[in-house]
């Protein structure tokens, strides 16, 4: 159970944004991606998740082992909180959503329609979804947006539980999660250098 990234380059909208990234993430490890807005954190996460192809380099990890959580939560407004979780649990072949509800303190909201949640409550639901995927590598893009301090702590606890069970996590964030054990990777040095101009085929990077 290990995520290995070698000399990865990724592009967004046909333009190379990051290159030369390499690291490994073993069981029980977490890594925080940092860097100013627009450096390419989201792009990197989507590439690792396989949602977009890598321009160069390799991402290797066992098949069906990662769960992605992006800016959007994938929450259906007309289903209740419990139904939303149940759906994702079933898709991943699991049944039990009790632990996930407890972990993000959603038990009281279980029968509420997701459309009637506040921004932070909705985000908690999005994060609880990770628990019902049964996947080992979590890719998280700014997971704590809209969360209050208490919920951030809940999330950190959930994440620690995941790591203790042999999981791994790759997290892009601008704020401090209070995860001291996590390694930090600043993406600024991996910015793609703009290719020399003039050559015609460069346009097709």
């Amino acid at each position: 159970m290990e995520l290995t990234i070698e000399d990865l380059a990724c592009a967004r909208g046909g333009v190379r944004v990051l290159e030369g990234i390499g690291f490994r993430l073993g069981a029980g490890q977490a890594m925080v991606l940092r860097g100013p807005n627009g450096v390419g954190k989201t792009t990197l996460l989507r590439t690792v998740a396989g949602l977009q192809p890598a321009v160069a380099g390799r991402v290797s990890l066992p098949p069906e082992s990662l769960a992605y959580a992006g800016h959007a939560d994938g929450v259906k407004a007309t289903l209740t909180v419990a139904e939303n979780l149940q759906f994702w649990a079933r898709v991943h072949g699991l049944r039990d959503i009790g632990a996930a509800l407890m972990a993000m303190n959603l038990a009281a909201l279980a029968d509420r329609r997701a459309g009637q949640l506040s921004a932070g409550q909705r985000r908690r639901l999005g994060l609880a979804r990770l628990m019902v995927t049964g996947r080992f590598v979590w890719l998280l893009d700014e997971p704590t947006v809209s969360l209050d301090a208490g919920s951030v702590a809940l999330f950190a606890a959930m994440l620690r539980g995941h790591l203790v069970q042999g999981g791994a996590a790759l997290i892009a964030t601008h704020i401090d999660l209070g995860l001291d054990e996590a390694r930090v990777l600043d993406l600024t040095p991996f910015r793609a250098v703009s290719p020399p101009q003039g050559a015609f085929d460069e346009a097709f990077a």
Partner: protein
Amino acid sequence: MRALFLRDLALAIRAGGGFGLGLAFFLLVAVLMPLGVGPDQGVLGRIAPGVLWVGALLACLLSLDRLFALDVEDGSLDLLATAPLPLEGVVAAKALAHWVVTGLPLVLAAPVLGLELNLAPGGYAWLVVSLLVGTPALSVIGAFGTALTVGLKRGGLLMSLLVLPMYVPTLIFGAEVVRRGAAGLEFGGALVFLAAITLGALALLPFAAAAAIRVNLR
């Protein structure tokens, strides 16, 4: 996959009566046509098969619109793409749910509208049969069209433009079955073609649609 199918059904039903609406639109088109054409019973009866089929087609089309779009907007499709379901299965499940919500009610309601449009008595049975055989193709073809345009805002119209030409064969043969049935002519050939189109679409298009979605997610 079953979970996805059931979820889509639940979503369609909760979002204000998904069942009723596809139907209501079918009804509206079938009502509008004679309004536009004028109240000549003879002409009406002759164009009834065509109008009913065009109505079914447009009802399908309108409800297709946001088959995947909602899932893209709220990020569900990203998550489904990384889930253990094959994307082809996702497409198939969603198309099936769409058919149950839209196609099936059309099939059931068609005879009533046939009456309203003055269809010849012999045509009713074949109207139902042709819709039953043909509408699954509409859902699958529609799923493919939506998959192609899924990333685009205001993709609805572009989607219609892509999908309608693909609907043409189904429309032609479907209406032909009804027309010949109503006139008491032989129509086996048209029905076979209709079935062949549906089977072909069911067999191939989920793969094409899944490929299109993969490209659009980038």
